[in-house]
């Protein structure tokens, strides 16, 4: 990895973390959602720096739309989505602190325990990566992805059903 790459990686990593912090520091729901979006975009940019072009572009594309949809739900359902009343974005602090702490420890353990030495294998070209990813998706992992797709579809239908308010005549 070249120095420039490392610098970019650090930059985007820091951006991802900073936007992640903003998610909780802002009072506005919409800002919070957009900050989460840019945090994920920065992660996508990190993929790009690490030469995982397809994954990076995909991440950047998907997050834009997902977070926008999330933002509209916040505006629709939340009181005070603009944060005029200095709403606090943190909830269940004790649980969150524990979860965050455990996550940090686990990440550090992985970093510590992984064997970082050894020759780095050459990264295949972006086109090769995309082709390999396609073979993987349509080969070995096809079942997993199809199953996941079906589950998401089921969840979508179920969520819609739950969201529809029971009407008087249904009771």
């Amino acid at each position: 990895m070249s120095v420039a790459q490392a610098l970019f990686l650090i930059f985007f990593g820091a951006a991802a973390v900073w936007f992640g912090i903003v998610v909780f520091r802002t009072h506005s729901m919409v800002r919070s959602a957009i900050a989460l979006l840019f945090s994920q975009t920065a992660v996508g940019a990190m993929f790009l720096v690490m030469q995982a072009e397809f994954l990076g572009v995909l991440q950047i594309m998907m997050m834009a739309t997902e977070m926008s949809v999330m933002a509209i739900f916040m505006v629709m359902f939340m009181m005070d989505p603009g944060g005029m009343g200095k709403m606090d974005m943190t909830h269940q602090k004790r649980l969150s602190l524990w979860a965050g702490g455990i996550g940090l420890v686990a990440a550090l353990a992985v970093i510590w325990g992984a064997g970082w030495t050894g020759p780095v294998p050459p990264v295949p070209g972006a086109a090769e990566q995309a082709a390999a990813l396609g073979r993987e998706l349509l080969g070995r992992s096809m079942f997993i992805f199809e199953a996941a797709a079906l589950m998401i579809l089921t969840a979508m239908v179920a969520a819609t059903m739950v969201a529809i308010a029971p009407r008087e005549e249904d009771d």
Partner: protein
Amino acid sequence: MTLAIILFALALGCYLIAVLEDWAVHGRLDPLRPAVSALALLGREQVLPRKSDRLFFEVGPVLLLVAGLLAVAVIPLAPGLIVTDLATGALFLNAALAYVLVALIMAGWGPNGAYAMIGGWRFLGQFVAYAMLIVMTITAVAMRAESLSTTEIVTSQAALWNVFYQPIGFVLFVIAAMGLAWLPPIDLPTGGGDLAGGVEAEYTGARLAVLRLARLVIVLALASATATFYLGGWLGPWLPAWAWTAAKTLAVAAAMLFLGRHLPRLREARYLAVSWKLGIPLALANIILVGVIALVVPI
């Protein structure tokens, strides 16, 4: 050098599209008008609406411009004349243009005006209609080229342009692209008679100039993407390669700009219904057809 040429082409293209748009709207051809308007716009006061979300208000137009510029970066003007020939170019175009949505939501939310806000969120609804169509038609294009690289997509059309190879995809892509660039009759976020400018309503002066420029870049990006994906990009006899790309791009842009002036603005529910109930099955059929043709008849 490549970058300089492309930037020059981009600026010229935007100016020509602005002339075309002015012609389409006002029914009069005035080649100087965009320059005059831009100059006048830059001299005007910039109003900051009260209680605006200042950050969103400022970032929205800039993000829109950045999204458009990134999209243009993967479009080849001629062989070798491309900012970056990504192996995932067609997907990258999508990713960049996804931020049009984010930018419009920010620009709509920022100024704290009802029309702007409704316009911004309306674009999200519009996005739900066009997004799948763009991705699915590009999928079929990439299938034929066996690559996501935009230059390879162009060279794959040497024997037959995609507009003839997959006409359904072409029509769907153009309709979806008009939705993405919020061109009439799918200009729901800014509709003049509905929302009095919508997302653009609160912007004045230089900020409005940036917003307008960004819109032009996006129209240019989509017109050139249509030319690249379906009209064979730089391919063509007699003229130099760049001239073909430019001519095709401008022709597509003119068609997009003039078509909408003769049609009433679509109803949002209608656009969604048609996109999902008719557009997506057609796009799927297009993918299957292209797949079958690509396997059976080698063109």
